[in-house]
């Protein structure tokens, strides 16, 4: 009797890319729900817009590159990229902002590098960075969190505003939007205010910023779940958060009037999202065990430096992109040390 000869192993696969991506999406839910609760329907609209535009862009690029549509559209990678970009964007941003961001991310940061698995940079962060540099005004119009904002918009009103720019009668934009805690921190500190007085601002709370702290804790929850499910490994998030915490702590202890506490830093901006969902993007991060420790620690240092001493209030996107550049080099200098081999053999 004759049989087909296929390659080993002869067991059914127990994992696939789309399952991994679905797990990441599941892990994004707690943080996203917190974001919608505190910052309104605009967050959901951002997600819907990036996902729709992302799938469309992906399909067009796959068709242009003569790649099969079904396996690549259903692998879930576009959903993850789109979702990650969406939650970094200001809620109630005009509709074209998420659309431009995700399209640029997928065309330039993903497909021009060769598609899934070949991108040098994290596509979501490229999209974010391009929007931040090109449309600084739109990108810094953050909604005020629930409890601080004077008014709130329903879903339909939010959609109206996103697509037409018109607010319902009696609602003022100023009542909806304001500076983020990191923005306030940056500007006030620049004007010579002390950390203790900055904290009196209405967007601050005992842990971080109002709403922001819960969103950050949501990302943390999802991240820990991914660790438990072994979707990600501990090295990058732990090394990033550790280097970031140690630096902020050192400076806070050295000069508590001009440097915010590590807790504030950890629970505001993109620190948690970055540590668990963005820095851990396997394609663009370092891949060796020792390399991942260096890579994560590097991001932590850069986030601190950018937040503390550069022009932008938050630095996660730029820190990740900078370390993306370094990842191949880090991998080269941290090769595998095979079983039983001594350090310098």
């Amino acid at each position, binding site marked *: 009797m004759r049989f087909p000869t296929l390659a*080993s192993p002869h067991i059914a696969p127990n994992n696939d890319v789309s399952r991994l991506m679905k797990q990441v999406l599941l892990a994004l839910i707690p943080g996203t729900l917190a974001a919608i609760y505190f910052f309104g329907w605009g967050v959901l609209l951002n997600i819907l817009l990036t996902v729709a535009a992302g799938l469309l862009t992906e399909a067009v690029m796959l068709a242009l590159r003569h790649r099969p549509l079904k396996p690549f559209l259903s692998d879930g990678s576009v959903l993850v990229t789109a979702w990650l970009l969406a939650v970094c964007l200001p809620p109630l941003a005009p509709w074209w902002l998420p659309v431009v961001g995700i399209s640029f991310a997928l065309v330039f940061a993903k497909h021009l590098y060769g598609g899934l698995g070949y991108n040098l940079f994290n596509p979501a962060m490229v999209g974010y960075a391009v929007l931040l540099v090109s449309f600084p005004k739109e990108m810094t119009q953050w909604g005020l969190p629930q409890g601080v904002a004077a008014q709130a918009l329903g879903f339909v009103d939010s959609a109206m505003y996103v697509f037409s720019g018109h607010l319902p009668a009696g609602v003022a934009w100023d009542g909806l939007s304001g500076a983020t805690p990191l923005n306030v921190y940056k500007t006030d500190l620049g004007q010579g205010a002390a950390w203790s007085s900055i904290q009196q601002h209405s967007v601050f709370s005992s842990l971080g910023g109002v709403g922001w702290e819960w969103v950050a804790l949501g990302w943390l929850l999802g991240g820990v779940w991914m660790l438990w499910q072994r979707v990600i*490994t501990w090295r990058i998030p732990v090394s990033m958060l550790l280097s970031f915490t140690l630096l902020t702590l050192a400076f806070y202890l050295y000069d508590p009037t001009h440097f915010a506490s590590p807790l504030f830093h950890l629970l505001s901006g993109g620190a948690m999202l970055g540590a668990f969902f963005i820095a851990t993007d396997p*394609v663009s991060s370092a891949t060796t065990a020792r390399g991942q420790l260096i890579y994560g620690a590097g991001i932590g240092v850069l986030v601190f430096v950018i937040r503390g001493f550069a022009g932008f209030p938050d630095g996660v996107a730029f820190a990740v992109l900078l370390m993306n550049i370094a990842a191949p080099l880090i991998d080269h200098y941290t090769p595998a040390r095979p079983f039983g081999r001594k350090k310098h053999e």
Partner: protein
Amino acid sequence: MSERILYRFPGGFHPEQHKNESNAKPIRRAAMPAQLVIPLKQHIGATAEAVVNVGERVLRNQRLAKADGYVSAPIHAPTSGLVRAIEEHDVPHPSGLRAACIVLEPDGLDEALQAFEPWPDFGEIAPLLLRERVREAGIVGLGGAVFPSAVKLAGTPGTAIHTVLLNGAECEPYISCDDRVMRERAEEVLRGGQILMHVVGAGKCLVGVEDNKPEAIAALRAAALKLADPRFEIVAIPTIYPSGAEKLLIHVLTGQKISRETRVTERGFLGNNVATAAAIYRAVVLGEPLTRRVVTLTGSGLNAPGNWDAPLGMLASDLIAQAGGYQPDVARLVFGGPMGGFALASDEVPLTKAANCFLVLAAPDAPVEPLPMPCIRCGKCAEGCPVELQPQQMLWDARAGDFERAEKQDSLFECIECGICSAVCPSHIPLVQYFRYAKTEIWQREREHEKSSVARDRFEFRNTRIERDKQEREAMLAQKRAQLAAQKAAEPVAAEAAVDDKQRAILDAMARAKARKEALQAEKTAASEDAAHE
């Protein structure tokens, strides 16, 4: 006995075990088929050389082929019968290779000859003689590696062996032949261990068995108690694939990590599969060569899975008929286990010393290769790799054709091809295939490089030789010319007195010096070029 501290090797994998399909029933003796196809190469090393002729009648245990060199093994007849042919036949090989086989037609009489003198008191026999017996009995590693056991027993000169390791891990899913051997022939296994300890002068014998085989562990412990030999230690180790890889097993049992470059004997260990130990026992104590082995026939594509004690050379198709034949939806035949085994194109291949299992899978359990997605460098493969490699990096090297980087930077040759990386890859990339391909490419290049450098050497040597011949000829001519000149110079002396003696003497001396110099020069060049080629 104090509890041994066990160590965890890096990575590893927990595949579905599927042991129960085959391990419940005792070993059955396979009925002798109408024909045995006995390959001349069933081991690592040189192909054995046939010592019987077509048409000759042979007896059971008679030697059919002799070992060709140090790393080789003889082959013996599993039963009496006629040698029908010595010809090429399909053998179990990943590429569907054909190889020389002795076709034996059993005559049903099963007449035997006593191949060797039984040595029940092996403790009295010199280790050297025992090693020779293991060689003459054709014993090779029965765990699947089929390395000639006698070569292993020679150890590493200058290093004493302190521990004999009997490997009963049997970590591949589905396979249970070692399990059954340990359960039913525990004493043979341990007596084999005693012989091994005696041969290498070891004072300890560790038997490592995965804890999914409690009956085997109990049987071995009972046998050790019966033998009243305190040198044995039967250790239940955690069930993690691939704990049966020798160096990983040593790590589990002792915490030592032995790198690829180091042989285990250099660290004082001698490892042998449990079935090999039992075969050594039979060769020494009963004087029987290796002509049979226990093989697992299992999988969802078979009607009656189990273990069979079968003669070497029995075709898989005959074995499968004894296991009740195929299920209607049979889809794949695998030689070995599902992780490290390879798919066979045909069941008309013989049972060899390496054959621990024929795995027959029905369609639902035989996954068709799914479309590989791009590598997303998720690192699942590196997490699972028991020898701490970065398969995702090696994949990039292999795909880019950067074999030098694969070898030097990413340590490709450390890969033991356990198959975990392929099994856990979410993108379904056949990583091990890439690594086998890369290794083969590197070997191929090395061979070509060697060939071309041999050719270059030959070409250069030819040039040198031509040059040397030319110089020798010139030197000879010069000498002759000098002689002629000297004669000519001598003749005119009588005729003309114009040339004075002094001038003649100078000319003579110059000619002589020139000849000597040229001869010397030629010799020197020849010598130095010879030296360059040594």
